[in-house]
């Protein structure tokens, strides 16, 4: 009996130690200080965090395992402008929950992942110039009574994506509607299809991608916010950021940007041309 009690006591002493260790490990990581420009030049390799499940922006091809999309192409073009034609460009799929930690821990050098520039995010990371002027909209099944965000009254359910700015916005624009947050666009769309909600909301670029996949759904009511997408880099990487902005300007001037826009968005019916620069 005495022995048992001693053992239990020892276990209880270990608990605070365990928690303390967790806290300490959480404080140790500051990768932001390494100069990305220099390490990239040395290794001739750059790693981008991109979406892996967003049609048109970054979608993993099931057969080849390659991620393809508008953002992936922009990332390739920018990398080549900065580091030359032979640079090796790696892509890591991220989602709205993992993208910031992955950047901050140094797993990726930069993020181009349908991420809108917000004041809150600016406190954590730095953003490049805008490369895509998205706006938030809602998507419903064709024939639905909901024609715009104003029709999302009490008793309606709207599906959003966890960790995205759009769920914070929808609470402002449709405060009476219940918001269900799912972990990514594919799951949110699946939930909408199975009737878990009346509408789905996120940036229009993403919604267009989904409607191109299933034409029985459409975007209604136009966009009610502006969500400018920017490339995210760690704070303290000023040189890298300047190089990215310069590269973005260059591909815009030499027509490569427009070519990529046409490649990915020219087929989309009802595509709002004002979203591109």
């Amino acid at each position, binding site marked *: 009996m005495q022995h048992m009690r001693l053992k239990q006591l020892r276990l209880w002493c270990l608990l605070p130690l365990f*928690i303390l260790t*967790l*806290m300490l490990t*959480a404080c140790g990581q500051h990768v932001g200080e390494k100069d990305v420009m220099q390490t990239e030049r040395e290794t001739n390799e750059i790693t981008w965090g991109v979406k892996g499940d967003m049609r048109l922006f970054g979608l993993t091809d099931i057969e080849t395992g390659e991620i393809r999309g508008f953002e992936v192409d922009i990332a390739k073009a920018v990398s080549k402008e900065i580091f030359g034609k032979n640079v090796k460009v790696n892509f890591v799929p991220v989602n*709205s*929950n993992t993208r*910031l*930690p992955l950047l901050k821990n140094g797993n990726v050098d930069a993020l181009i992942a349908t991420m809108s520039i917000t004041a*809150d*995010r600016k406190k*954590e990371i730095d953003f490049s110039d805008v490369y895509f002027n998205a706006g938030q909209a809602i998507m419903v099944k064709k024939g639905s009574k909901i024609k715009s965000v104003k029709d999302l009254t009490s008793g309606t359910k709207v*599906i959003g994506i*966890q*960790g*995205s700015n759009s769920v*914070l916005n929808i609470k402002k624009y449709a405060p009476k509607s219940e918001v*269900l*947050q*799912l*972990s990514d666009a594919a*799951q949110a769309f*699946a*939930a909408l*299809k*199975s*009737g*878990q909600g009346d509408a789905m909301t996120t940036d229009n670029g993403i919604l267009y991608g989904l409607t191109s996949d299933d034409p029985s759904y459409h975007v209604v009511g136009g966009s009610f916010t502006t969500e400018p997408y920017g490339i995210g880099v760690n704070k303290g990487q000023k040189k890298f950021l300047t190089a990215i902005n310069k590269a973005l300007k260059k591909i815009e001037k030499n027509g490569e940007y427009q070519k990529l826009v046409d490649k990915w968005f020219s087929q989309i019916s009802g595509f709002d041309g004002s979203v591109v620069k």
Partner: protein
Amino acid sequence: MISILVGHWSELIEGMKYTIASSLLALVGSLILGVIFAMFVISPNKSLNVIGKIYVEIFRNIPLLVIAMFFYIVMPRIFPGLDGFKAGTIGLTIYTSAFIAETVRAGIESVPVGQMEAARSNGMAYLQAMRYIVLPQAIKIVVPSLGNQFVNLVKNSSVLAFLAGFDLMYQGNLIASTTFKTTDTYLAVGLLYLVMTMPLSYFMRYLEKRWSKTPTV
């Protein structure tokens, strides 16, 4: 971590309510289903036997997330109104019941055959002998492993987070994604799960001790 606990206390408590509600429902449901299917598995009736074995093998060997997703995405087409909380709780109940069935089956089989034989020769029907003689002994034997299943169940209820089921993990995800304090948030969430599972572990251990003092055989 403290700032997350203080600043988002109401969301975390809201999440805990859903986690506890789902866990309690699934706990009762999976215990009932588990005992029923355990009896199917050991039943002398061939067809019940097969049904029980198929049920246990299927649901024990499919990831909980897949079962829950099935009830969230596919089943609403037949049963509208199956929201994230209900779908998750049903998935959790079925998944856990398969493990409980296995545990209870082992418990029933460890009760000496003589118990059943004696009960039958005293004129009890098979089900009566099961209900009054064998099951009470079996449950006591399996209390420790049932305790494990229950603790696992509470932790597994975090599957609701993927179905917008408003549980503790769901609220944690939302807090982490709006505050960007990922580490602190998940530490706080982990601590709150401990607050729920530790008393459960101790209660099961208490039951174990208490029941071991009253010999049944």
